């Protein structure tokens, strides 16, 4: 102990000098001027170089810990990526739907499909909008691609719509190109057929089928499908098979048009049919 004390005493000048140098440097680096910033930059660069050299030496425990963290982060980011992809697809669909709304003068209600049911060729979809959203029976349901169907039942918060692939839905349609009229319905197997088209009518494969003004339930001009096959049904009528424009298997969001049959017209037609 005494030896250490004597040794320290013998170098006291150097110890004091070191102490003053350290204090001076601390004071200098506590300044905030351009010179000190320059030194700090050099110091940071120097320390950074040393640290980058040290970091090249692998630390097994740190690597294990980091690996675990990165795995967890990877899973988290994968989940987020999946969510973002889903959101992007939804955004694209909604954007397209909104684009349709802008050109449509009728009021529309955006709805999401919460259920699809298939009971003996009576395909329906359940929507997350109902009477509280001004949904009424017989309102048409569409997408940006074309006609989906019509509302057949409502509750306060939900509604059910028949889609084209439903045997109970008959739609008055016409060929866009040749203006030939017909009645479109589902045959219960895999085809949507346009009936009542005379054998001599001008119908070609690729013709666009759309709703006609004769329909009580649908506004005229909504695209329905494309003619994929045409042939003779019998001596009087043609058999025209149509592929719906809407892909029902991928359908997730729809628009309900605030369009209802005109009461006066319905009453007049009912009155006449009773005679």
């Amino acid at each position, binding site marked *: 102990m005494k030896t250490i004390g004597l040794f320290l005493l013998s170098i006291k000048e150097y110890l004091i000098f070191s102490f003053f140098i350290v204090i001076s440097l601390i004071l200098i680096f506590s300044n905030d001027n351009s010179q000190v910033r*320059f030194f700090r930059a050099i110091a940071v660069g120097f320390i950074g170089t040393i640290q980058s050299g040290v970091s090249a030496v692998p630390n097994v425990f740190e690597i294990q810990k980091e690996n675990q963290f990165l795995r967890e982060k990877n899973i988290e980011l994968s989940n987020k990526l999946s969510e973002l992809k889903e959101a992007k697809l939804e955004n694209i669909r909604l954007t397209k739907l909104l684009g349709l709304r802008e050109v449509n003068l009728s009021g529309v209600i955006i709805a999401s499909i919460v259920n699809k049911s298939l009971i003996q060729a009576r395909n329906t979809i359940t929507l997350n909008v109902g009477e509280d959203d001004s949904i009424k029976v017989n309102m048409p349901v569409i997408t940006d691609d074309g006609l989906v169907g019509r509302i057949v039942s409502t509750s306060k918060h939900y509604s059910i719509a028949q889609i084209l692939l439903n045997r109970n839905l008959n739609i008055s349609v016409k060929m866009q190109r040749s203006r030939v009229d017909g009645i479109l319905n589902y045959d219960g197997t895999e085809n949507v057929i346009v009936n009542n088209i005379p054998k001599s009518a001008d119908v070609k494969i690729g013709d666009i089928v759309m709703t006609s003004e004769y329909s009580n339930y649908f506004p005229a001009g909504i695209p329905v499908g494309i003619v994929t096959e045409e042939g003779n049904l019998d001596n009087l009528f043609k058999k025209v098979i149509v592929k719906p424009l809407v892909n029902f298997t991928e359908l997730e969001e729809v628009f309900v048009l605030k369009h209802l049959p005109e009461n006066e017209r319905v009453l007049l037609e009912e009155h006449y049919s009773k005679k």
Partner: protein
Amino acid sequence: MYFSEYLKFAIIFAVLIIVQVSFVWLIAISNYNITPDLVIVLVIYLGFTRGQIAGMVSGFITGLTLDLLSGSFIGLSALSYCVAGFIAGYFSFQDTAKSSVKRSMIGIMFLCTVIAYSIFFWIYYQGSSVSFPEIFMKYVLTTTLYTLVIGTVLVIFSNVLDTKK
């Protein structure tokens, strides 16, 4: 050193600091504003005559005082003056004949001042486009030489006093 001696040097330092801060600009030379450093002369003298610790402590305290008075770059003068006091103390003549060593005091003062001002101006001009040789020629050497003139006067005055005694 006795207390009275501490007090004497403290008073001399206080006077020199006031003169350095308030009046030395009156004898500044040229556009570079070269001035003699009266305080460092006394720090070196103290280190030279009283040893390294006295030189370092006085250098640090007076340097810090000048830094605080100048209001910028706190610690820079303290560092350079402390180094000057330390080097001067290294050549302290405490154990040898006064007269023989005092003759070499001017050379030691030159050495201490050059090193102290090299440190001071090198740090002071960091980040600027001025190179160290330019700093050395324009500021370190000129200030050192100007200070040395004052130092020489002090040494001569000291010798005269010694002779009279």
